[in-house]
């Protein structure tokens, strides 16, 4: 279901019909499955089905002038359900989104700040680039920084912005560092040289911002020798797997959960502490629907002694987005102003209904979104949000 990315670099809405992708779009049967599966479909003046129709009629200007595509959270739900296998989220919606953002009379403040911060500081929160490694303070295991020791390394761990700066993300980063050490992974990080992979630029399709971050990170990558790149951010995974490829990035890229799955035989005997948790797992859109990693996270969770897994009503390919993708991370206020319920508040109710006491996640956006949602929806104290790597570490540590 993945589009031929290399052939898409430089494609615009004008030239889209000349590509195999465009010919796929022409085959749309207007069934409306896309609109029906979209978590924000009911709030969009132009959900995917209508966008395709407007495109066929040459009326896309009307779509650009509405804010419909601002509400797209890049969750791949429409794309995964399309009977014609049109690459909606990967191709068409991105191009529409780019035009929407360019023509918006006013970009919502929080999104604007996140985009400007990513350009200037290399992270959406506007933190100093020199504080990127601050999560390592008080860490009692070694983490090699390539600028200090540039010996070739097996795994380049791309930490990304939320794990580097957000307090709960930092907990995850520290957990990963400890697990990698226990597994004797030969790994290193870019440290303060790293800048956001640019997924915020890509998913809200600010192509200029994305390209500037791609240019930057690609130049840094060429300085060092590594066999594979591992990241705990499924959005960064997407950026490297699909967008960076257009710019000649060739290294093998994995998310930390499927990466740890490769070490499963070594990992399992280390999981010694019994955790008496009932856990429900939220499938990240990028990790699950887009890259097909549904079972690896569940198998790892099952291997932790004492953990009982219960599934939410919507799981695996039917999982409901936390609302953080596609720039949604910075559009909560905008959605609120339109009386649109936060998707994470919606999703947390499903999690609570399972009766689980831990919501396990594998994406750094989900941690703050669901922790907020627990408070907003009045379930604070009834459930905690933990990254899978935190649960692994809890079962490993003395």
């Amino acid at each position: 279901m993945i589009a031929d990315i290399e052939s898409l670099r430089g494609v615009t809405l004008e030239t889209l019909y000349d590509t195999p992708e465009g010919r796929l779009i022409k085959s749309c049967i207007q069934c409306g499955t896309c609109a029906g599966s979209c978590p924000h479909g009911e709030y969009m003046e132009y959900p995917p089905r209508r966008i395709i129709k407007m495109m066929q009629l040459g009326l896309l200007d009307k779509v650009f002038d509405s804010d419909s595509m601002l509400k797209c959270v890049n969750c791949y739900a429409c794309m995964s359900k399309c009977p014609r296998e049109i690459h909606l989220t990967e191709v068409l919606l991105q191009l529409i989104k780019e035009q929407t953002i360019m023509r918006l009379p006013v970009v919502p403040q929080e999104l604007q700040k996140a985009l400007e911060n990513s350009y200037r500081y290399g992270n959406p929160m506007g933190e100093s680039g020199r504080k990127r490694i601050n999560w390592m303070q008080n860490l009692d295991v070694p983490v090699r920084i390539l600028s200090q020791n540039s010996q070739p390394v097996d795994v380049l761990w791309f930490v990304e912005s939320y794990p580097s700066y957000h307090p709960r993300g930092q907990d995850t980063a520290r957990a990963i560092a400890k697990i990698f050490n226990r597994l004797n992974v030969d790994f290193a990080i870019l440290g303060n040289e790293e800048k956001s992979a640019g997924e915020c630029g890509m998913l809200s399709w600010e192509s200029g911002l994305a390209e500037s971050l791609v240019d930057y990170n690609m130049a840094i990558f060429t300085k060092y020798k590594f066999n594979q790149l591992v990241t705990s951010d499924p959005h960064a995974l997407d950026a490297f797997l699909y967008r960076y490829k257009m710019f000649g990035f060739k290294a093998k890229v994995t998310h930390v959960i499927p990466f740890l799955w490769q070490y499963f035989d070594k990992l399992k005997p280390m999981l010694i502490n019994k955790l008496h948790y009932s856990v429900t797992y939220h499938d990240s859109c990028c990790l699950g629907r887009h890259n097909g990693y549904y079972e690896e996270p569940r198998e790892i969770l099952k291997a932790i002694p004492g953990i009982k897994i219960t599934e939410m009503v919507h799981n695996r390919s039917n999982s409901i987005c936390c609302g953080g993708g596609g720039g949604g991370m910075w559009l909560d206020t905008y959605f609120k102003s339109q009386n649109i319920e936060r998707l994470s508040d919606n999703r947390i109710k499903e999690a609570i209904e399972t009766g689980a006491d831990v919501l396990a996640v594998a994406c750094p956006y989900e941690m703050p979104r669901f922790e907020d949602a627990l408070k907003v929806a009045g379930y604070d104290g009834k459930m905690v949000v933990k990254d899978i790597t935190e649960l692994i570490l809890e079962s490993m540590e003395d």
Partner: protein
Amino acid sequence: MNILVLLKMVPDVVEELKIGDDFKSLDRDWLRFILSESDEHALEQAIILKEKYGGTVTAVAPDAPELDDALYSALAKGADRAFKIIGEWDIYRSPGLAKVFSRFIEINNIMGEQTLILSGSQAIDDLEGEIVYYLAEFLGLPGCCVVTSVQYNPDSNCITLLKEFSGGLRGEFELSLPAVIGIQAAENPPRYIPIAKIRNIMKTQKIEEIEIPVEGIPNGLTIEKLFEPEVTDRAEILEGTPEEVARKLVEIFSDKGII
């Protein structure tokens, strides 16, 4: 309208500020520079005026690190020309910079009947807010600062301004052009410019560099000493669990006779 907007780069406080070895300036090793926030608003207001009433916008700034980024961004937002005044401007404070700008205006023969000069009302690196009034004085023009709204009436060639006072008071002023005004906040927050557009502007447009003779320019106030706020021992951080902290708080309150 012929709109001129005066810009200045200031230290970016996202980086921690450190005082340099001379105790008179900031340590520049890690310092980054960013366009002064109220200048960002002045630029936005200038572009809004151009969109409403037509004319041209010229952005001008004394040289500083990262200034090019700010000027390209101004061009991308809609400025027609961008000037960088070459030189070392660290030691010049408001009266000096106002003189530099007035010379820039004279040399480039910018003054006309419909000229409006805008700047930010205050910058975080000096909090003086004086540049507008110095410049108005040097040019013999009316000046007004802390402005939050600008309307232009082409028939009378006058601008109507809203100026903010403390306590929530606002005053309405009318000035005839040419005039100098200091913007506190633009009508709309500074707009977003897609980075692709800025990158494209960098390839297609040029920042014009200009030199200004510096003799006879006063540098204004001289900094004698920079120092960090002195630490007093009045704050005490209570450590422990919430319950322990609460218990200690109650003890302290009852010791002090508060409860």
